């Protein structure tokens, strides 16, 4: 046990984070919802819900189904559209001393580029996360399942914005490293690994799919082993920071991801189960690093690799 204060800070391009714990897009709204419960400035960064060019009403309910140690969601990217996000949502977040990352979802390369330009110009966000892996809208996963499309998309967005660029990968592919390498080669500064697994739940009483959208994205502890495997594989192929996402419920899970190769972690479904999970993980990591005399984050990233 030591009283030294380990350095958990982390840099992704120009994005400076005081610690590696972020929120996962779509599970933290626009941040303000949780402001009553804890001090957001304790987090490394806040990732807000996916923004699209036009407002989207989203999918019909039910949008949520519980599954063993997991949940399915099919929100369908409901959001008020980029302009409203910029004018109404981001100003509220500006009050807090925490970097803001916006998750972008386009229907074409052009739309992604326009979104990147809009959010870069607004001066209110610190990084962009490209959502090329949304399972809940038509063609949502196309850019994330074909390496040549990934490369084209990332390259064009890269050219259109100076903000740090994070690409969020889908686990619903044969070889996630192919997509990871394509994204990094095209200029992605970091990778979020992973988005949800595609799943279905059947309502036995009504004899039809439980979700209004039929399929949904599986998240929560159930998918942790798959997310860890993806982080592990990607870590062996790329040199940019990996943000581990998928079933992280507590400090121990966050440590598993860091040891598997993640430089940061994003907390999603856990926030529904325990609204203060993310800040508890910040404190837990600080304690672990101090107790184990680890000077900085880098000392543990990828430690489980041979």
């Amino acid at each position: 046990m030591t009283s030294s204060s380990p350095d958990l800070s982390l840099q992704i391009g120009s994005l400076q984070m005081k610690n590696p714990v972020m929120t996962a897009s779509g599970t933290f709204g626009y941040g303000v919802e949780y402001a009553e419960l804890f001090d957001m400035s304790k987090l490394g960064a806040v990732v807000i819900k996916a923004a699209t060019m036009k407002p989207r009403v989203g999918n019909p309910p039910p949008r949520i189904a519980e599954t063993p140690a997991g949940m399915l969601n099919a929100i369908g990217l409901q959001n008020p559209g980029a302009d409203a996000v910029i004018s109404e949502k981001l100003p509220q977040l500006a009050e807090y001393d925490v970097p803001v990352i916006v998750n972008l979802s386009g229907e074409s390369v052009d739309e992604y580029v326009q979104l990147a330009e809009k959010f870069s110009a607004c001066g209110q966000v610190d990084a962009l996360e490209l959502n090329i892996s949304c399972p809940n809208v038509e063609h949502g996963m196309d850019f994330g399942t074909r390496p040549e499309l990934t490369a084209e998309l990332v390259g064009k967005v890269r050219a259109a914005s100076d903000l740090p660029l994070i690409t969020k990968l889908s686990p619903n592919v044969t070889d996630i490293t192919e997509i990871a390498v394509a994204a990094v080669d095209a200029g992605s500064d970091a990778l979020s690994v992973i988005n949800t697994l595609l799943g279905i739940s059947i309502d036995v009483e009504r004899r039809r799919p439980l979700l209004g959208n039929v399929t949904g994205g599986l998240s929560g502890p159930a998918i942790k082993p798959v997310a860890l495997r993806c982080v592990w594989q990607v870590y062996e192929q790329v040199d940019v920071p990996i943000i581990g996402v998928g079933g992280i419920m507590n400090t121990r899970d966050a440590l598993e991801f860091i040891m598997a190769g993640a430089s940061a972690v994003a907390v999603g479904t856990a926030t529904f189960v325990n609204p203060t999970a993310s800040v508890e993980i910040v404190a837990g990591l600080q304690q672990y690093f101090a107790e184990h005399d680890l000077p900085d984050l880098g000392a543990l990233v990828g430690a489980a690799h041979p």
Partner: protein
Amino acid sequence: MVSVECELLSNEEDAPGHYVMALAAPEIAAEAQPGQFVHLRTPRTFDPLLRRPFSIMLADKVHGHLRLLAQVVGRGTEILVNTPVGAKLEVLGPLGTGFPLPTGDGDVLMVAGGVGVAPLISLADALRGFEHPAYIRGLFGAADEDMLVCWIEFAGRCDEFYVTTEDGSAGERGLITEALAQQLDRGQAAVAYTCGPVAMMAAVAQMCGDADVPCYCSLEQRMGCGIGACLGCVIAAADGGYLRVCKDGPVFATDRLDWEAILSDQQ
């Protein structure tokens, strides 16, 4: 809104499969408005994973207690009602937008179906506390006598009280909507509040709309976060979009909702 660990103070079966549970939750009781709810974590393990929403049936601000009414319908509620007295539960609340209180004169109608009585009890309790208490006419429908959960608590807070059961084992035989029709015919209602099965609330909404009586209902939907962040709990709005049950509701003016869509999403 706070996230706290609360001791379970008591847990009693009121009707078959229905439990009244008291929690020590002073911060939540102090803030709670009628019609708001809490989001409860049942076990510490990850199966079942998500929290479960329950209406606040009574918020005893003096003693700092909450009373909930829980009906066993699945695994989460099964675990919940088997929680031993003295155990701690993780409680997030109070959540959501509750009932708007009546503004004008005239009587207040309350139409409860089964376990839907819970938020109406909290509302009736608040109205009783006014300097000039509203005159409450309570209507309670259930399948049979056994399902008239917490009827004593409800009846005790109403000035007039009517019961219907489908099998006639208590009160009038028939549906609660028949009793409502009679009440609306009297023409003295300023506002109506309802909570119960969706089909019942849709009928109540329709009847009040026809009678030009403003009506508020408390809805249910599967929830992720419970605080407005995940957009998981939406319900179809009259204007074509969706409203969040956890934040914009659970109480809605019935004319803001698209009842046709709501009923068809349920099928």
